[in-house]
C-alpha cells in the first residue's frame, strides 16, 4: 500500500477507526465545560474570542445569581442573602476578571481553565488570612468559578455553531451537543475518549461520515483550521498533509466511494432469504436528524428510538410539550411501519445529573432506566403522555428499558391506563399501540415467558445482556476481553429466550449491536431470530448477507454450536460454514 509507505513522512495521530471513510477538511475544536480539567492550548487569533466568551459568561452568571437571589429571597434570613451580594461582587471584581484574561493571554489557554486556575490562586491567597469567618467562605470561590464555567458551557453551545464544513475535534461529545450540530456541515470526528460505541461513533456511522477515536491528545496536537485528513479505515488523522499524501488519499477515497455504490445497490433488494423466507431489518436511531435514514436504507421500521437525546445535561428536564413535538416528528416518518420509542434510559452512565445527583457505587446495577422512572412519576408521566399523544396512526410501540421482573411491567401498564384515562378526559383521541420490554437483564431473559400476558413484543438488548451475564463492563479495558457475544453462556441464553417465547406469538427482536454484525447476525439466525434492529447503514449489508443464506436448514447448526466450548471456535465454525455468504459482504465488514 502506497499510503502506508508515505505515512512516515507525515505528521499524524494514531487512534482507532470508529467510523469508516476518508475525508479531507479543516478542523474545528469543539469547546465544552468538561474541558476545564486540563488546559486546552489556543491560538493567538482565538484570544479575543476566549475573552469575549468570558464576558458573556460573567454577564449570564450575574443574571443567574440575581434571579436565584430573588427566588429564595423570602425563604432565608437577610444576612444569608448578603452572600449573594458578595458573590455578585466577585463576579464584577476587576482584579479577578483581569487576572482571568491575563491567564488566557499569557498562558494561551481556554477560558474555563483560566477561570479555574485564577480561582485556585485566590483561594490560596484568602486562606492565608487569619479570619475564621473568611476561612469558612473560602470555598465559595469554587462555587463562583463553577457558576462562570457553567455559563461558559452554555455560551459554548451557542458558540459551537459551525458555519462551514468542518471536522469536529472533541474530547468527548454528549448526545445533546451532537443534537445541536448542523449535520450537513459535519465532515468527520476526531475524539479523545470515544470508542466504537461512543455517541460520536454511533452518529458518525449512521451519518456515514468518517471518525477516529482514542486520540487522547487531539486537543493539544490539532488547532482550529488545521488541514486534516481523517482516515477511518486506518484510524489515523493526518495534520496538514503533504500534496503527495493528499493525492494518494484522493485515489483511495475514490475506491471507497465505489464500494459504497455497491452497497447502495443492495438497498432496494427485498427482505427475503435465498429460500424466500422473510426477515425484518429495522433501524436504531438516536437523534431526530437520523429520521431520513429510515427511507434511505429502506428499513422495515424503527426498532429502537432512544429518547436520551432530549436530555440536555446542562438544562432542566424536557417538558411534555417539548417531548411531544420531538415524538411527533418521529411518528411522522411513516404511518404504517412500526415505530418503537424507548422511554428514557437514564441512570448509570446517562444519569440526568441536574435532577437527581446521587453517587452510586454500582450505577449499572443501580437506580436507572425504568427503576428510576417508576419512583419518579413526575418524569415518566410527561414522557408517556407525550408519546401517546404523538401516536396519530396507531403504529406506536412503547419500549421499556431495564425491566427486571413482571411486577414492574404490571405497574407500568397500570400507569399507562391511568394516563390514557387522563388523556381521554382531556379530549385526546387515542390510537392503539403496543407495549414491549427490553430483555437486557438476565432475570428477564430467564423468565421471558412470564411477561407474555403483559407485553406485545420483546427486544433483546444484547450489549447490556452480555455485560450483565458475564459481569463485564466492556468500557473497562482490563476486562474487555471477556465481553464476547459468542460466549457459550450468551448463546445458550439467547437460545433459551426463543424457546420460552416459541408459542407466544409475540414478536421477538434483537436491537443490540449483535444484530448488525455479520457473524453475530448469522448466529442469531441459527438461534431462531428473524427481527433485527441496527444502525441504518448496516441494513443493506445484513440484507445482502441474509439474501445469500437458506433459512430452512439453518437451525440445524445449533446442534453443533451448542457442543463447542470456546467463543473463538464458534466464530471459526460460523466463518467456515458461511464463508461464501460472508465473502459476499466482506468489503463492508467493519
Amino acid at each position, binding site marked *: 500500500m502506497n499510503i502506508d509507505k508515505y505515512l512516515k513522512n507525515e505528521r499524524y495521530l494514531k487512534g482507532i477507526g470508529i467510523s469508516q471513510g476518508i475525508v479531507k477538511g479543516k478542523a474545528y475544536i469543539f469547546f465544552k465545560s468538561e474541558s476545564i480539567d486540563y488546559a486546552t492550548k489556543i491560538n493567538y487569533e482565538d484570544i479575543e474570542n476566549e475573552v469575549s466568551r468570558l464576558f458573556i459568561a460573567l454577564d449570564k452568571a450575574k443574571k443567574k445569581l440575581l434571579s436565584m437571589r430573588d427566588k429564595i429571597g423570602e425563604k432565608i434570613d437577610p*444576612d444569608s442573602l*448578603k*452572600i449573594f*451580594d*458578595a458573590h455578585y*461582587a*466577585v463576579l*464584577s*471584581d*476587576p*482584579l*479577578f476578571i483581569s487576572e482571568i484574561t491575563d491567564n488566557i493571554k499569557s498562558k494561551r489557554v481556554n477560558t474555563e481553565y483560566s477561570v479555574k486556575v485564577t480561582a485556585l490562586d*485566590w483561594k490560596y*491567597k*484568602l486562606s*492565608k*488570612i*487569619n*479570619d475564621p*469567618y*473568611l476561612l469558612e*467562605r473560602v470555598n465559595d470561590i469554587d462555587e463562583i468559578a463553577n457558576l462562570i464555567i457553567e455559563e461558559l458551557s452554555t455560551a459554548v453551545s451557542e458558540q459551537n455553531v459551525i458555519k462551514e464544513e468542518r471536522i469536529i475535534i472533541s474530547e468527548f461529545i454528549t448526545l445533546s451537543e451532537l443534537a445541536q450540530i448542523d449535520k450537513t456541515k459535519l465532515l468527520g470526528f476526531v475524539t479523545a475518549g470515544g470508542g466504537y460505541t461512543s455517541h460520536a461513533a454511533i452518529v458518525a456511522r449512521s451519518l456515514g461520515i468518517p471518525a477516529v477515536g482514542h486520540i487522547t491528545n487531539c486537543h493539544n496536537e490539532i488547532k482550529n483550521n488545521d488541514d486534516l485528513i481523517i482516515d477511518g479505515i486506518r484510524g489515523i488523522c493526518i495534520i496538514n498533509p503533504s500534496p503527495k499524501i493528499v493525492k494518494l488519499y484522493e485515489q483511495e477515497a475514490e475506491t471507497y466511494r465505489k464500494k459504497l455504490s455497491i452497497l447502495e445497490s443492495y438497498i432496494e433488494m427485498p427482505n427475503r432469504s435465498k429460500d424466500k423466507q422473510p426477515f425484518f431489518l429495522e433501524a436504531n436511531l438516536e437523534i431526530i436528524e437520523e429520521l431520513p435514514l429510515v427511507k434511505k436504507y429502506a428499513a422495515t421500521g424503527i426498532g429502537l428510538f432512544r429518547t436520551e437525546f432530549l436530555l440536555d445535561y446542562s438544562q432542566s428536564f424536557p417538558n411534555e410539550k417539548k417531548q411531544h413535538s420531538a415524538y411527533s416528528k418521529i411518528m411522522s416518518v411513516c404511518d404504517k411501519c412500526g415505530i418503537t420509542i424507548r422511554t428514557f434510559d437514564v441512570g448509570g452512565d446517562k444519569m440526568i445529573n441536574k435532577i437527581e445527583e446521587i453517587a452510586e457505587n454500582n450505577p449499572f446495577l443501580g437506580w436507572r432506566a425504568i427503576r428510576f422512572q417508576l419512583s419518579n412519576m413526575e418524569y415518566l408521566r410527561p414522557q408517556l403522555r407525550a408519546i401517546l399523544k404523538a401516536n396519530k396512526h396507531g403504529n406506536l410501540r412503547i419500549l421499556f428499558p431495564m425491566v427486571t421482573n413482571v411486577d414492574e411491567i404490571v405497574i407500568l401498564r397500570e400507569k399507562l391506563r391511568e394516563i390514557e384515562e387522563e388523556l381521554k378526559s382531556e379530549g385526546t383521541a387515542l390510537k392503539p399501540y403496543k407495549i414491549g420490554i427490553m430483555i437486557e437483564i438476565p432475570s428477564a431473559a430467564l423468565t421471558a415467558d412470564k411477561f407474555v400476558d403483559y407485553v406485545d413484543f420483546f427486544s433483546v438488548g444484547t450489549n447490556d445482556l452480555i455485560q450483565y451475564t458475564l459481569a463485564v463492563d466492556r468500557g473497562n479495558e482490563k476486562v474487555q476481553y471477556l465481553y464476547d457475544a459468542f460466549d457459550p453462556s450468551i448463546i445458550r441464553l439467547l437460545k433459551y429466550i426463543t424457546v420460552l417465547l416459541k408459542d407466544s406469538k409475540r414478536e421477538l427482536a434483537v436491537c443490540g449491536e449483535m444484530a448488525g454484525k455479520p457473524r453475530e447476525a448469522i448466529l442469531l439466525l441459527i438461534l431462531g431470530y428473524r427481527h433485527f434492529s441496527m444502525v441504518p447503514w448496516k441494513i443493506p449489508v445484513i440484507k445482502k448477507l441474509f439474501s445469500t443464506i437458506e433459512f430452512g436448514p439453518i437451525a440445524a447448526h445449533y446442534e453443533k454450536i451448542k457442543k463447542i466450548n470456546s467463543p473463538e471456535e464458534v466464530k471459526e465454525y460460523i466463518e467456515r460454514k458461511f464463508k461464501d455468504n460472508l465473502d459476499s459482504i466482506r468489503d463492508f465488514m467493519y
Partner: protein
Amino acid sequence: MLEKKFTVKNKHGLHLRPATEFIKITACFKGEVYLAKGDVEVNAKSILGLLTLGIDYEDEVIIRCTGEGEDDFIRNLQEFFNKEE
C-alpha cells in the same frame, strides 16, 4: 490624586459583608480608587483584593483616588468607615 487616612470602626473589621458594602460604594465611583494597609495597596474596587488585606477593627487604611467627583467621594467614605457594625 486625593489621599486620606481612615480608621476602621467596624467591630469585625472589613470582613465579607462590610467589604461587599464597600465595593458597592467604590463601584459607583467613575475614577480609580486604591486602598492601602501598611505597605500593601490594592484596587479598592476588587472585593478579593480587599479581603486579602485582612483589615481588622481599628486598622488604619489609606484611600487614594482620582477621577470625577473625587472630593465628594472621599468625604462620603468617612460615613462608611465610622460604622460600628
